[in-house]
């Protein structure tokens, strides 16, 4: 059964109440309360279509109004009749109207009620009235609405669209029957045909009670705007209260991306959430929700599926911890493989679609060096590496050429021409991993006209504690031939290095390497071309100052210059730590080294690099390095030669050098670099370009010829990786 509903003009409310209860001003307290309730219901729940609450309040008021005067009870019955009429309960409406008319025969309906209400009011009057009453009723009855609820002329006061009116009426009926989804459906259809603020408010009410708070809020806000535009005080009041109430009740959701997460796509109840907006708060409806996220970390596809139940007013925080594919899509072997993986590279090995049978990396780079002592170096290099992640082996090699041009003060001081030479260096390396054990070996060879170096080494690793701790031991050996002039090798230098280190995974975003090396050198490290000026021990040597010029040194030195001589044995010890921490979109790398050797040279070196991701394809980094050291125990600014009183021969210090790197110094290096990935992330072949440049300033505290040096060096490289 269809019901009729229309808005009431509250401008005539006062008049209605005056006509309805002419003695209200004299009523007792209960009478006044009843009249007040009737007024509030008429303005509020009834006018906004909230008939359920309207009826409840009216019935409650009537129950408390047993001793009220008839003029106070009549408005309550009239309103109950109007509510019943609006909700399609015609007999009830008629009964309420009759009770109102019996309580107060002078009672009247408020103006401009619906045709149904007026018809039912008249019907009730006919049943209640005596024949004389009926004869005396001069008011012609309203025309009975037709089957569509319209007047014979097809016009419904306050409405322009009959179908909209009918849909709204159906919505009300559905609401009273407790069928909220039908209420929403009918009200929406009505609003599609004709915008009515009260229909919008009723729709908002049904939506809010159906846990669709967001829709309810939106419709309440529209009704409020409509009410403001039309200056409809009743609509404004109800809509404003509803908006405020819904704003308090609406829950929210926000997301917590994991550090290092890239390219993640998040959907909340099938709606996409922009990556950059993940940490914002979104309004949601209470109830069950589904979060789906998928993305890649270092090329590994990961996903998240989670369900949440959210109550009114709650804030839901969703941690976006993406994991590998669900176990039901994996074979037992793959699952075991993935559970044992120690990283995403290992996970890749377990996934057939991401398997990399053979990975090839190759690169070429050109490096350059220049400093204020007129030393220049150009160094092109190529390298390549092939690995089989599934079989655990790798092999690679590199080759480079150093083209050196030098006219340093040391050379100039000896009146030697600038020298120009080339060094060729190459190496091969390979490794194999079997279970928790790994081995990596390497050999290298370098050659220049007067120096040849041959070397090799072996490193062993072992995974401990579920691969969270990985110790490594290594041994390297080098045998160098030291020459004076091309193919005139006069001595050798053997170097044995023992190395031990452990890498600790401290957290999902940080790791620490602690390592120590012991290096033992046997042989002659002296430069056969480096001559050491000697000075008179009494009259000259004490007066030589750091940075003394070439001219003064040559003028004041003794006529002979012995060649440099260093101790033939040197034991060098160092301990270092490397800490890396990955932030969201950046990596901090810290290195610290402490050094001591048997020549009493002590040093500390600190290296810091902060790698910042500028988008998916570009990372840049600033770099700072600081080194400070003491001199060796035999280093002197000015060496002295004396005459043996017995043999009358000159006696020079056993160990002597002008090597500034064996003197006390500090150096500060600052620079940076960048790596630009040229290929799309899903391309099979990845290309990249790397650029680095650093400026190193060195302060020498106790050296001849110069007190400081500035060097600039850098590299431009191109790399490729493909399967």
């Amino acid at each position, binding site marked *: 059964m269809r019901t009729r509903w229309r808005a009431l003009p509250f401008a005539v409310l006062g008049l209605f109440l005056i006509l309805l209860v002419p003695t209200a001003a004299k009523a007792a307290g209960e009478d006044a309360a009843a009249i007040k309730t009737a007024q509030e219901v008429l303005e509020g729940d009834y006018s906004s279509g909230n008939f359920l609450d309207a009826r409840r309040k009216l019935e409650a008021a009537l129950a408390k109004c047993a001793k009220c005067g008839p003029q106070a009870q009549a408005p309550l019955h009239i309103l109950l009749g109007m509510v019943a009429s609006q909700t399609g309960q015609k007999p009830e409406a008629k009964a309420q109207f009759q009770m109102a008319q019996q309580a107060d025969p002078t009672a009247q309906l408020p103006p401009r009620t619906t045709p149904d209400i007026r018809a039912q009011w008249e019907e009730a009057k006919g049943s209640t009235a005596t024949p004389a009453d009926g004869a005396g009723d001069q008011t012609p009855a309203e025309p009975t609405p037709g089957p569509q609820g319209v007047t014979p002329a097809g016009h419904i006061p306050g409405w322009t669209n009959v179908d909209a009116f009918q849909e709204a009426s159906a919505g009300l009926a559905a609401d009273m029957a407790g069928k909220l989804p039908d209420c929403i459906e009918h009200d929406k259809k009505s609003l599609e045909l004709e915008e009515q603020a009260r229909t919008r408010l009723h729709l908002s009410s049904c939506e809010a009670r159906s846990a669709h708070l967001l829709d309810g809020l939106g419709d309440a806000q529209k009704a409020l705007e409509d009410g403001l535009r039309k200056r409809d005080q009743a609509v404004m009041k109800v809509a404003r209260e509803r908006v405020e109430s819904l704003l308090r009740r609406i829950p929210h959701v926000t997301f917590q991306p994991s550090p290092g997460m890239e390219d993640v796509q998040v959907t909340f109840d099938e709606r996409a959430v922009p990556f950059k907006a993940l940490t914002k708060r979104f309004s949601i409806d209470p109830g069950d929700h589904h979060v789906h996220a998928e993305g890649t970390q270092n090329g590994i596809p990961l996903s998240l599926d989670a369900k949440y139940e959210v109550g009114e007013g709650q804030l839901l925080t969703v941690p976006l911890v993406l994991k590998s594919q669900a176990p039901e899509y994996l074979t037992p072997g793959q699952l075991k493989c993935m559970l044992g993986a120690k990283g995403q590279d290992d996970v890749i090995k377990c996934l057939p679609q991401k398997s990399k049978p053979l990975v090839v990396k190759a690169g070429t780079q050109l490096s350059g*060096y220049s400093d204020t002592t007129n030393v220049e170096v150009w160094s092109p290099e190529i390298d390549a590496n092939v690995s089989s992640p599934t079989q655990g082996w790798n092999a690679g090699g590199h080759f480079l050429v150093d083209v050196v041009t030098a006219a340093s003060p040391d050379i100039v001081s000896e009146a030697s021409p600038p020298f120009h030479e080339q060094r060729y260096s190459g190496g091969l390396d390979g490794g194999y991993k079997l279970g928790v054990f790994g081995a990596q070996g390497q050999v290298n060879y370098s050659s220049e006209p007067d120096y040849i170096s041959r070397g090799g080494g072996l490193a062993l690793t072992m995974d401990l504690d579920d691969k969270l701790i990985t110790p490594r031991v290594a041994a390297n050996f080098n045998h160098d031939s030291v020459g004076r002039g091309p193919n005139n090798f006069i001595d050798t230098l053997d170097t044995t290095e023992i190395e031990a280190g452990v*890498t*600790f995974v401290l957290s999902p975003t940080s790791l620490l390497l*602690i390592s*120590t090396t012991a290096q033992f050198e046997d042989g002659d490290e002296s430069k056969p071309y480096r001559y050491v000026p000697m000075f008179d021990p009494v009259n000259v040597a004490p007066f030589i100052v750091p940075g003394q010029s070439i001219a003064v040194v040559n003028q004041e030195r003794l006529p002979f210059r012995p060649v440099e001589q260093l101790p033939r044995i040197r034991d060098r010890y160092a301990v270092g730590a490397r800490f890396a921490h*990955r932030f969201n979109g950046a990596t901090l790398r810290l290195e610290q080294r402490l050094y001591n050797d048997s020549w009493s040279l002590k040093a500390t070196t600190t290296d810091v690099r902060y790698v910042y991701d500028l988008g998916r394809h570009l990372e840049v980094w600033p770099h700072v390095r600081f080194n400070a050291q003491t001199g060796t125990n035999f280093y002197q600014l000015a060496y002295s030669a004396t005459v043996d009183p017995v043999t009358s021969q000159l006696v020079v210090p056993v160990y002597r050098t002008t090597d500034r790197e*064996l003197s006390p110094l500090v150096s500060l290096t600052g620079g940076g670099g960048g790596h630009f990935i040229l290929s799309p992330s899903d391309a099979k072949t990845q290309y990249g370009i790397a650029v680095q440049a650093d400026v190193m300033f060195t302060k020498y505290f106790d050296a001849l010829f110069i007190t400081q040096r500035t060097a600039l060096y850098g590299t431009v490289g191109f790399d490729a990786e493909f399967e």
Partner: protein
Amino acid sequence: MKSARIGGGIVRAVLGIVAAAMLSTIWGCAHVAPYERGTLAHPTMSAEDPFTTPLANHVQDVSEGATGGLSGGGGGCGCN
């Protein structure tokens, strides 16, 4: 003579590593599940040094009196 020096060096290295392990135990290594190690596989998180070029290494070797310490960094880090 030489073997004695190398033996002493190995002893020092081992002592250093034991000290490092104790230090790490004090700090406490959290257990990190394999699926949580994706970030550690990022190229910039290598325990080795992926940034220093051969030339930069050479410049540091000849400009600084010190050497070693982290020259052989690496081993496992949860990310190969």
